[in-house]
């Protein structure tokens, strides 16, 4: 079978000598899914834009891109417009900015139809509605008349897919199609993509940084680093028999939702800037297997088997010695904590939430602003954290976890319920004791760029809390703190923008630790980082906790990270806690249908398991927190509710479930009338090479 798309030695250079893509070659055949994996800045998105001819004019492109044997590079616009959207379509990452805000979704879909098919306006609009129906948008006739901002993220991405398949393309290029989405919505979208592929029989190029997504979708995988492919092969080969240290490191650094505990293996350093690449292998500065020859010249991509290519001079050695990532990468050792040997009941409570409530007025309209309702952001949640413990608060966007965290950090009297920090009730604090209490309660933010004032040198940033609380010896302490988080003293004089994402997050952690707090609130501390960097930060957090005896409230949406870091976990849904308990209990025997769906939606970086796994795919989107369903809030999407009898359902509709301790467990509770423990993550005894 001849390939649909052949890319040969593609290079893209931007003004200023920025070599974004440096020689990429691949082929995609009909019905085949090629996954392109890489961290940010690896050139994976630029490659696909070059294929579509959508790069800005100042980009210099060379090489060859052939569609059904026809060269696309250098084709004039008249011909190119007949290919774009017809033979090749593209699905973009952020569907909000990818739709024109001033036209309805239906009109934009109809436009796509009419560009390539000679049909009337009415007919095109009808086709648009059919397409929306095909990708699973409810009430497509009504929704077609809505504007992009009126769609939820998941719905927009569905519409984007509908637009991409409007003209039966031969090839679909998906650029991070699910990155902006929640995990249950991601599962839905991947499902739609698979349907779309079935309908059109198209080849797919799937670009992502998420090795879990690729494992379940791709037939072949191309790993990119610093603008070049470093390894290519069938998905099983790449995952089970990686031959390039970068790929090995990437796979070893992902926290796994099915994984056993233990430190992750980070890749040291950060990817090189495309402006000044090292002379030899671009990965050499970070590679644990580096030898002098690596720095001499860049290793070419050589064929080492059937459709298998590697760019590493030591790949033969890796193959012969059958090295695994743990052989190649040093496994960090994290000192154990003393406090964890003390039973939970004997430890002091450092944070306690009792029936916390936070409602917001819902305002609408930019010109005519007015209140249209109440958002039940947090609607009565309770949990506690003891000394030396990590509690993770997990849930999808809009579940109220960020609001909970802000309520705690503000240390103001809550609307209802109680917040008790280190035995002090937030409602009974005066100004001075509130300020004093702030020393013991600190926060690390999600976005390491936004969390640091860009106009302050790092030293001042870390010193700010010290000065605010009138401490002496500030500069000595700043140095100490920077070293504590793995930075150097001379970094104090630089500005945040001179640091990589992982380093910035370390600065944020240093600032949070400056006042030697007892409780640290972590707001998605690693979700903005690339996987290879993420592992290092996770390890640092774990180490600090053990060394300093900290307690963490860890807010996250990534359940795999949570499994690694947390002792206990609370799952939130629409402002309520759905399930709470120790990590082992909740992950291995989830009892709430929402937790079960959430866990089953997480893609595993393991192709074999992904193929055999059964997913629980939830229907629809999260209901509005302004108008939560009566009774159990989850019932509108609950797969279990769908299976219940009419009589049993009545209880779900009428009575709101509260968290009840499960009979046979010590620390495990679920807010479901029909809670039932099941296993959704396949046990993974065979993590190592098969």
């Amino acid at each position, binding site marked *: 079978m001849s390939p649909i798309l052949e890319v040969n030695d593609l290079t893209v250079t931007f003004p200023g000598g920025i070599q974004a893509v440096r020689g990429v070659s691949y082929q995609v055949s009909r019905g085949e899914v090629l996954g392109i994996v890489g961290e940010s800045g690896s050139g994976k998105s630029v490659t696909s834009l070059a294929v579509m001819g959508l790069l800005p004019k100042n980009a210099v492109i060379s090489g060859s891109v052939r569609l059904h044997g026809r060269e696309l590079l250098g084709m004039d616009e008249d011909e190119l417009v007949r290919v774009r959207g017809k033979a090749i379509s593209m699905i973009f990452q952020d569907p909000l900015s990818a739709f024109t805000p001033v036209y309805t979704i239906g009109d934009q879909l109809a436009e796509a139809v009419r560009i390539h098919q000679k049909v009337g306006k009415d007919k095109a609009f009808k086709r648009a509605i059919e397409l929306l129906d095909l990708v699973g948008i409810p009430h497509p006739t009504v929704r077609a008349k809505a504007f992009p901002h009126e769609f939820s993220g998941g719905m927009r991405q569905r519409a984007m897919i509908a637009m991409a398949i409007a003209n039966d393309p031969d090839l679909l290029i998906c650029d991070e199609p699910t990155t902006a989405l929640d995990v249950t919505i991601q599962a839905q979208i991947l499902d739609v993509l698979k349907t779309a592929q079935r309908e059109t029989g198209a080849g797919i190029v799937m670009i992502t940084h998420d090795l879990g997504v690729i494992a379940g979708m791709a037939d072949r995988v191309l790993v990119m680093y610093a603008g070049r492919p470093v390894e290519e092969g069938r998905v099983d080969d790449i995952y089970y028999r990686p031959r390039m240290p970068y790929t090995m490191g990437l796979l070893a650094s992902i926290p796994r939702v099915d994984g056993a505990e233990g430190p992750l293996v980070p890749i040291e350093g950060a990817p090189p800037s495309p402006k000044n690449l090292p002379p030899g292998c671009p990965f050499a500065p970070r590679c644990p297997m580096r030898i002098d020859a690596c720095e001499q010249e860049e290793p070419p991509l050589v064929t080492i088997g059937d459709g298998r290519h590697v760019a590493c001079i030591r790949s033969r050695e890796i193959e012969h010695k059958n090295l695994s990532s743990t052989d190649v990468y040093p496994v960090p050792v994290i000192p154990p904590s003393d406090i964890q040997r003390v039973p939970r009941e004997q430890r002091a409570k450092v944070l306690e939430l009792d029936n916390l409530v936070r409602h917001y007025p819902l305002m609408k309209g930019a010109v005519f602003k007015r209140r249209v309702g109440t958002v039940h952001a947090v609607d009565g949640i309770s949990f506690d954290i003891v000394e030396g413990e990590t509690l993770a608060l997990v849930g999808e966007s809009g579940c109220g976890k960020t609001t909970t965290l802000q309520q705690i950090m503000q240390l103001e009297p809550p609307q209802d319920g109680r917040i008790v920090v280190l035995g002090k009730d937030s409602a009974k604090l005066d100004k001075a004791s*509130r300020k004093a209490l702030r020393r013991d309660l600190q*926060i690390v*933010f999600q976005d390491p760029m936004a969390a*640091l*004032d*860009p*106009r302050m040198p790092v030293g001042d940033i870390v010193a700010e809390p010290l000065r*605010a*609380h009138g401490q002496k010896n500030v500069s000595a302490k700043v140095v100490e703190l920077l070293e504590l988080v793995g930075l150097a003293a001379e970094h104090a004089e630089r*500005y945040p923008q001179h640091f990589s994402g992982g380093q910035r997050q370390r600065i944020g952690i240093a600032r949070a630790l400056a006042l030697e707090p007892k409780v640290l609130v972590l707001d998605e501390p690693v979700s903005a980082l690339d996987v290879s960097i993420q592992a290092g930060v996770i390890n640092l957090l774990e180490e600090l906790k053990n060394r300093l005896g900290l307690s963490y409230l860890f807010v996250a949406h990534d359940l795999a990270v949570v499994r690694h870091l947390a002792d206990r976990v609370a799952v939130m849904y629409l402002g309520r806690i759905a399930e709470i308990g120790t990590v082992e209990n909740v992950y291995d025997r989830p009892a709430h249908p929402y937790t079960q769906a959430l866990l089953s939606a997480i893609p595993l970086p393991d192709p074999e398991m992904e193929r055999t796994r059964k997913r629980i795919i939830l229907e629809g989107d999260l209901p509005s927190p302004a108008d939560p369903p009566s009774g159990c809030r989850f019932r509108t999407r609950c797969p279990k509710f769908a299976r219940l009898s009419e009589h049993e359902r009545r209880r779900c509709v009428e009575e709101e479930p509260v968290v009840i301790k499960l009979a046979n467990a010590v620390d495990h509770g679920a807010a479901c009338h029909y809670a039932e423990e099941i296993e959704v993550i396949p046990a993974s005894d065979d993590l190592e090479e098969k």
Partner: protein
Amino acid sequence: MRSKVVLARLVRNRQARYGSIALLLLVLLAYVGPFFGQYEWTDKDFMAFLSPPSADHWWGTTTIGQDMYAITLRGMQKSIIIGLLTALIATTLAAIVGAFAGYFGGWVDRVLMWGVDLLLVLPSFLIIAIVSPRLKNASWLWFVVLLAVFAWMITSRVVRSMTLSLREREYVQAARYMGIPQWKIIFRHVVPNLSSLLIIDATLNVSGAVIGEAALSFFGFGIQPPDVSLGTLIAEGARNATGYPWLFVFPSGMLVALVLSINLIGDGLRDALDPGSNT
């Protein structure tokens, strides 16, 4: 670090470079130029009324025999000073009011923004026109204050809306959670992060004030005789422009050159400070 980058970008920016060179020359002309002229601006040459430019009077003379060169440069000095001071006051006012309104929200915001709205609908032209001739004996600085008072409102609205988003930035939240007082957060974290907007705005306010002064003086509502500014000179010149063009051309030319060079700098600054915006 950042300032170095900005400076490098500014030097590389052609607009800003030409603008700064032109402005430097104009300021030099205004302040050093008079030493080279043969007449003081207060001198009256009774031998030459309305004489065209000549070797003696480089830019000609006025109806009462004043040397146009001397008097235009004198007017320029005044215009430059007025422009700078007005811009400084207006931008400071805009920054403080906007930042406080945006940061605190609630009733502080409502009161301040209501004041802004009121100042916007107040007949500024009328107020300045009525008040400034009465300031004859007072210092011209009052005129500057008047100009500034009606020049900051739009910017403060922009500052306010930017503060609204800055307030939610995580580093501002972090400062709040550290227990740092609100006003300190405003001056330490909010205002410095608006500095590019404010610098650009201040620059453009200079040219706005120069034009504003000239416009008011055009009707006799601005700088009062015997003092002169570019505006009073242009007003004088415009009346006799057809017969004695040098009366009009020199002050107008200087005004246009001044405003153009400042605008070029402002635009170049925007490019250098704010690479995201394409202005």
